[in-house]
């Protein structure tokens, strides 16, 4: 009782002093047993998702698909209302991921004077600190330097003169150092002096200073993933080694609380400085009080809302003695992962007690939560913050306008996939030409001795009609449908995405034998039913479109590779007359095939194509390769870019009708393409596809 009375006036005095000068000073007069509750709020892996919007479909997303920082902002507001003392941090991978991110970094790089949209949004929310993620390196060090308004101390990477737009909060990282300077490229940690409301033993509330250290870590793999941007410029150390150095340093400088922002997941394998997801091991470093994790886009601890997603299997498999997935404790350290794209807010509540002249974290009463957008009842999603939509509206609209901008090249022919299964290549040849161009250029300019030795080997390419009925009768590639030589059509920025549907694919090259090529073509030809020429029943040429992306169509420059498909033969013996430059392809012949990572690593189960024949892995997306190639053309013509049909059917007379299902109303397209096999449009089937009559004797 006496202590309480005697201590209180002193604390009041200290508190008043602090309020007056606003700085942090030691608190020798804080009564023993005073408590302070701090809620560390965290976002991670926002990936430039501001609004709940899908830039690929150019459409908003709502309901259970809601995402974006504008929605998280509502969670942040609620958490701030619930907790007197909060700290808001972000754990990296904030700047890359949507078309908006690419637009601001690559397509129309923002000037020094501007601030990235994601940082403007974060500034409006008053973040206290942030770490980097691996994706922050995707756009290169000069861009990072500009957008953080920070000299990274890396030789050859100059920060633009003057003050560039940047986040208001400090951005920290402790395990990436400049090779030229030997110093970290960013502050390894920041010491934040904050005044928080504490509770005296008598229950009274008082404002006291707290020194919070925030440290950042990225996976060492950044050097591999972004070698192009980073090799020879920066070095990466293991996260535990960095933590051991800088946590101790921050503590020595008076940090009361240490928050680690670790852009990595939880992996219980023995520690190695090379490991990608080393966050778990940070809890073994003395002095870490709260751990914010990310990178693997998971929810930790387990979602608390009713009917929430169950704990991811990889997290459930972590040893229970180390990891408590209900409370969110790793080795007793409160730990959180807020999924990704702004769909969750990490909330770590720390209880500090003033004991023996310092703040001590009460591990037993700390808690962690990964709060989702429907946290109240599991089904009502928060309303995204309208103010933020206004704040970033200009950037949002500019991105949408960009997607609809002209690409800078005209086409004199329509590119469609309606009749790709009877030989039309109007939507495929240009992709193959772009891929061949890319790989030929690579082989001509490489310094790699192995790749150089492949210089004389023919480069061919394959691609598929990716949008050809898989998702219904309306799901067909159809770019510039009105184009003709009399009135060419300007392609738009988004059209490469129509021609090459899978934005997740990277270009790769494989080196194969003629025998592999034949097996590859046979596998593609599995798409066709075996046609019985004697049958009088209706036969569907392509019974299912579910794996139509595995119908690889090959091409060599000048249409030098040709082959025929005999659909009357069983799977595995349908390819005949396979020729390159007019000569039969020998089993022992060498070819380099430009394709994608899906196929090269085994997608579709093509014999022998399982990663073992890959000779080159590009960081460039096939979609980007196509876009870049299109931009370099003066114009596209059917003669040069749309009529190089490598394959045809072996002519067969059938007793009964053969049909091909496609979108209704496209007979004129077949006629303009010069496909005499397509003779008539028939009735619709139950799914809305029109049944076109196919004459295989033509």
């Amino acid at each position, binding site marked *: 009782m006496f202590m309480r009375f005697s201590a209180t006036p002193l604390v009041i005095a200290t508190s008043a002093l602090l309020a007056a000068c606003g700085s942090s000073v030691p608190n020798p007069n804080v009564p023993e047993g005073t408590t302070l509750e701090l809620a560390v709020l965290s976002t991670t892996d926002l*990936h430039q998702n501001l609004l709940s919007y*899908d830039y690929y479909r150019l459409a908003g997303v709502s309901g*259970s*698909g809601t995402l974006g920082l504008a929605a998280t902002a509502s969670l942040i507001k609620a958490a701030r209302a619930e907790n007197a003392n909060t700290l808001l941090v972000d754990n990296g991978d904030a700047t*890359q*991921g949507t078309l908006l991110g690419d637009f601001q970094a690559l397509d129309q790089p923002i000037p020094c004077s501007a601030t990235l949209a994601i940082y403007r949004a974060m500034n409006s929310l008053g973040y206290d600190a942030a770490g980097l993620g*691996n*994706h922050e390196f*995707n756009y290169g060090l000069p861009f990072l330097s500009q957008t953080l308004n920070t000299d990274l101390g890396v*030789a050859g990477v100059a920060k633009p003169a003057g003050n560039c737009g940047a986040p208001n909060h400090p951005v920290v990282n402790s395990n990436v150092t400049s*090779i*030229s300077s*030997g110093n970290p490229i960013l502050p390894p940690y920041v010491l934040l002096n904050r005044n928080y409301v504490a509770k005296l033993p008598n229950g009274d509330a008082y404002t006291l200073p707290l020194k919070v250290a925030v440290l950042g870590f990225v996976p*060492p*793999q950044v*050097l*591999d*993933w972004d070698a192009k941007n980073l090799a020879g410029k*920066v*070095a*990466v*150390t*293991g996260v*535990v*080694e960095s933590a051991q150095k800088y946590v101790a340093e921050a503590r020595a400088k008076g940090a009361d609380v240490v928050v680690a922002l670790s852009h990595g997941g939880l992996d219980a394998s023995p*520690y*190695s*400085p*090379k490991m990608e997801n080393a966050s778990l091991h940070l809890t073994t470093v003395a002095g870490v009080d709260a751990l914010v994790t990310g990178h693997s*886009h998971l929810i930790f601890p387990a979602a608390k809302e009713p009917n929430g997603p169950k704990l*991811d*299997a*990889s997290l459930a498999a972590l040893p229970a003695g180390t990891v408590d997935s209900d409370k969110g404790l790793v080795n007793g350290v409160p730990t959180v992962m807020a999924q990704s*794209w702004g769909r969750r807010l990490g909330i770590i509540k720390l209880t500090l007690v003033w004991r023996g002249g310092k703040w001590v974290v009460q591990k037993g009463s700390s808690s962690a939560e990964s709060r989702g957008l429907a946290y109240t009842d599991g089904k009502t999603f928060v309303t995204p913050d309208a103010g933020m939509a206004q704040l970033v509206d200009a950037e949002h609209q500019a991105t949408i306008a960009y997607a609809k901008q002209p690409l800078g090249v005209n086409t004199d022919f329509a590119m469609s996939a309606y009749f790709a299964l009877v030989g039309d290549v109007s939507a495929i040849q240009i992709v193959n030409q772009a891929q061949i161009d890319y790989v030929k250029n690579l082989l001509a300019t490489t310094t790699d*001795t*192995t790749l150089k*030795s492949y210089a004389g080997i023919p480069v061919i390419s394959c691609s598929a009609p990716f949008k050809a009925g*898989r*998702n219904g009768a309306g799901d067909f590639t159809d770019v510039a449908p009105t184009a003709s030589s009399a009135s060419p059509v300007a392609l738009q920025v988004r059209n490469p995405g129509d021609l090459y549907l*899978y*934005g*997740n*694919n*990277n270009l790769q090259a494989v080196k194969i034998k003629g025998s592999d090529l034949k097996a590859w073509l046979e596998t593609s030809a599995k798409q066709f039913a075996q046609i019985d020429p004697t049958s009088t029943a209706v036969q569907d040429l392509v019974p299912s479109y*579910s794996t139509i992306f595995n119908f690889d169509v090959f091409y060599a420059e000048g249409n030098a590779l040709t082959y025929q498909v005999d659909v009357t033969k069983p799977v595995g013996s349908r390819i005949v007359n396979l020729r390159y430059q007019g000569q039969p392809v020998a089993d022992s012949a060498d070819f380099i095939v430009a394709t994608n*990572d*899906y196929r090269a*690593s*085994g*997608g579709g*189960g093509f*014999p*022998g194509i*399982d*990663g*073992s024949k890959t000779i080159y*892995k*590009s*960081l460039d*997306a096939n979609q980007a390769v196509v876009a870049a190639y299109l931009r370099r053309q003066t114009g596209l013509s059917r003669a040069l870019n749309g009529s190089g049909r490598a394959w045809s059917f072996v002519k067969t007379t059938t007793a009964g009708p053969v049909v091909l299902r496609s979108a209704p109303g496209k007979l004129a397209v077949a006629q303009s393409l010069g496909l005499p096999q397509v003779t008539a449009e028939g009735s619709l089937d139950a799914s809305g596809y029109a049944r076109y009559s196919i004459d295989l004797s033509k």
Partner: protein
Amino acid sequence: MRPRLVATGLLALALAACTPAAPRDAAAVEALGMQAAQTRDAGALRTLQHWAGAAPAPLNALAARELGLALAADPAQADQARRWLTQAASAGDAEAAWTLGDAQRRGGLGWTPDPAAARPWFERAAAAEHPAALLALARAARNGEAQPRDPVAALALLQRASRAGSAQAMYLLSQAYAQGEGTAPDLALARHWLEQAAERHHPPAMQDWALALEDGRLGVTRDAEAAREQWREAGEERRNRWR
């Protein structure tokens, strides 16, 4: 730049003069190996060499491997890299053995491509359940590379590689179960291993998992929203998993 080079030189001299302390643990060796590979720092290379130990001293296989990997980044030092990696592999380091096998097969480290010569290295690493080495042997068996085709042996190797953590092996194992290669078809196992490979962000597996969520192949429960999420994940991951 120049003062730093001088400093590095002095450090090297100092290191030559006084013997570096023994490594604290395996992580310390790997940490120095990373530094040596990334910065080409002469002092780091020298310390690694000291730790690796020259005959007649017993070899520290881990330090020899890290030294070999650091030297391998420089084509001019391919011979030295091979020598240290060979010593490490001979002393039981599986990663070194796999590195040598891969270089031998593809024609790295100054070798001409020779799949048959790569095999003993892969086998040595596979004996320690090295995932990439098991995968290499599995692919050789399924493709008949420098050996007769053997789908049954390939399946067993894919199982081992998958259990050892290779996402690419999990993906190929999923295909083997789906298509009945070296085994009777088993859709449940095909589904299981596809999901496992996708969880580990193997690009083709992420794509096939997204497709399966869309159309229910392999008995996967259709979920349009989860599919969209998976496509987005795959799009983001392509920048990480491109190698």
